[in-house]
């Protein structure tokens, strides 16, 4: 019996269901609290339960230039880091999955390293390299840090898709008279496109929320998470922070959803490598 459709008995044990439900609840209640606090009328401390609810913080958040600056910097950083990661990750994945060569294993290790090692190490290593090389902090130093750990996200997605895409497609294309570049444009790209899109979106979301590496590579620039870190400590219009947090959740939610649907038929979304 060949049984992909099976091995999944119809009903789940009650205990399992309860444990899974409790786990999910544990994951979600704190987030709800963030949302509730985005509406509280009390701005200095976090009083529970909130004395009253209001939506004024949304307008106030939008008015604040520092929020907008930080948001814009984060968007630019995430977009650039994602673009770099897409190029590097795809090249790496293509090389690793299309050919066997000496050091292939080392490369997959190398790609994994920036997320397998704690972010603080990536951060401090880059920072001390910048200072040794006398590179001043700039937009590009942030991108450098972010792209480093975003590569693996794209790489994982692309490798999974390459693995799923039969190698004979490329041979078939060449067999039918397409040279290397034509094959790339007409066969490879269309086939790995959605995986790249998914990987790119996850990389974007990851970069958008990164704080640890950024702390070390941003100098005095404030990305949105850095801004939040400052803001969460200062008791000034704290609900604004929660409004921004809520916004970030809403903004990252869509790419994640899209990534899921893009890669659903087949490989898992490789989002775990945050």
């Amino acid at each position, binding site marked *: 019996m060949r049984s992909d459709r099976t091995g999944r008995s119809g009903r789940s044990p009650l205990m399992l269901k309860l444990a899974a439900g409790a786990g999910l609840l544990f994951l979600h209640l704190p987030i709800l609290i963030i949302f509730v606090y985005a509406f509280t009328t009390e701005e200095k401390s976090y009083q529970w339960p909130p004395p009253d609810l209001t939506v004024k913080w949304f307008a106030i958040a939008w008015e604040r230039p520092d929020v907008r600056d930080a948001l814009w910097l984060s968007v630019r950083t995430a977009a650039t880091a994602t673009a770099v990661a897409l190029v*590097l990750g795809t090249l790496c994945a293509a090389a690793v999955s299309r050919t066997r060569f000496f050091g292939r294993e080392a490369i997959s290790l190398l790609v994994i390293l920036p997320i397998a090692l704690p972010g603080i190490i990536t951060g401090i*290593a880059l920072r001390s390299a910048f200072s040794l090389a006398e590179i001043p902090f700039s937009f590009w130093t942030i991108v450098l840090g972010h792209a480093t750990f975003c590569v693996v996200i794209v790489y994982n997605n692309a490798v999974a898709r390459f693995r799923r895409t039969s190698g004979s497609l490329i041979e078939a294309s060449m067999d039918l008279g397409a040279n290397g570049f034509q094959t790339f444009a007409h066969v490879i790209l269309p086939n790995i496109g959605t995986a790249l899109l998914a990987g790119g979106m996850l990389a974007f979301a990851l970069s958008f929320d990164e704080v640890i590496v950024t702390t070390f590579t941003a100098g005095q620039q404030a990305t949105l998470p850095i801004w939040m870190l400052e803001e969460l400590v200062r008791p000034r219009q704290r609900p604004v922070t929660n409004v921004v947090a809520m916004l*970030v959740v809403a903004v990252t939610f869509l790419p994640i959803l899209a990534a899921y649907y893009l890669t659903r038929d087949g490989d898992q979304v490789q989002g775990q490598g945050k």
Partner: protein
Amino acid sequence: MSAAAEAIRPPRDGTLGRLSDFLWRRPGLFLLLMLTPPLLWLGIIYVGSLFALLLQSFFSIDEFSGLIRHEFTLKTYAELLRPSNFDIIVRTVSMAAVVTLAAGVIALPIAYYAARYARGRWKAAFYLAVMLPLWSSYLVKVYAWKLILAKEGILNWLFAKLHLTWALEALLAIPVIGGNSLSVSYIGTFLVFVYVWLPFMILPMQAALERVPGNLIEASADLGAGTGQTFRHVVFPLALPGIIAGSIFTFSLTLGDYIIPQIVGSSRLFIGQAVYAHQGTAGNIPLAAAFTVVPIVIMGFYLWVAKRQGAFDAL
């Protein structure tokens, strides 16, 4: 359709056509071209930076001015192994281990349910239910926990409402891991760590459980194994690589985090904080660098084990 055409076509004109022929004849060169950009980035810039950092751990710092003395010395490593620093290492590694274990235990039912029982819409819902917390702002989540755990916070409020304050107090009375309130105790730090890294455990675990072929589970039932036996003898061993992959994240993230223990904790430093403090606050880059060697060595070992278990494919 007659077969009149030539058997071998002439080379295509144009740069691309010629370049394609050229690269086709030199697959090694082509591979090199593909690998150069990522290798430059990861191999030279990233790994180069790591080495530069490690190098700094062999320098020392002038105690009065805080300036680095660029002379080779092992003094910094001697310092690293001082009892107070050694405590930090032990504390962090224990926390990482406990957090990983707990995350594994909590993640398992969720991952197992999502992998084996959730279907269609439910499956998507489960996936999003894990992804949403994963991608919500890390900082805001940590802060939410500070509010939950504070002495005047939500959890105390809830326990008071439920007349369970005594239970909380009993918990906090436990030596070492307890404390004045959850937000200044190891229990609190632990809870937040588990919370924040949990999705990192669930996703690879779920992927691994999904990869356990359904037919093996049927075969096991066919051979007389009940649900529990099947889980123990078939599902778990086969999903282990994925679980190890997930644990790489929880373990490594705990090893390096400096924000959580600072916001929820008892001022006893963790490695991340020590690195952060020595690098930033104290300007002692050599000691900070020496501290980073600890997670690097630990994760190196971890990756080696993971590799042997085939966990890389599950990352």
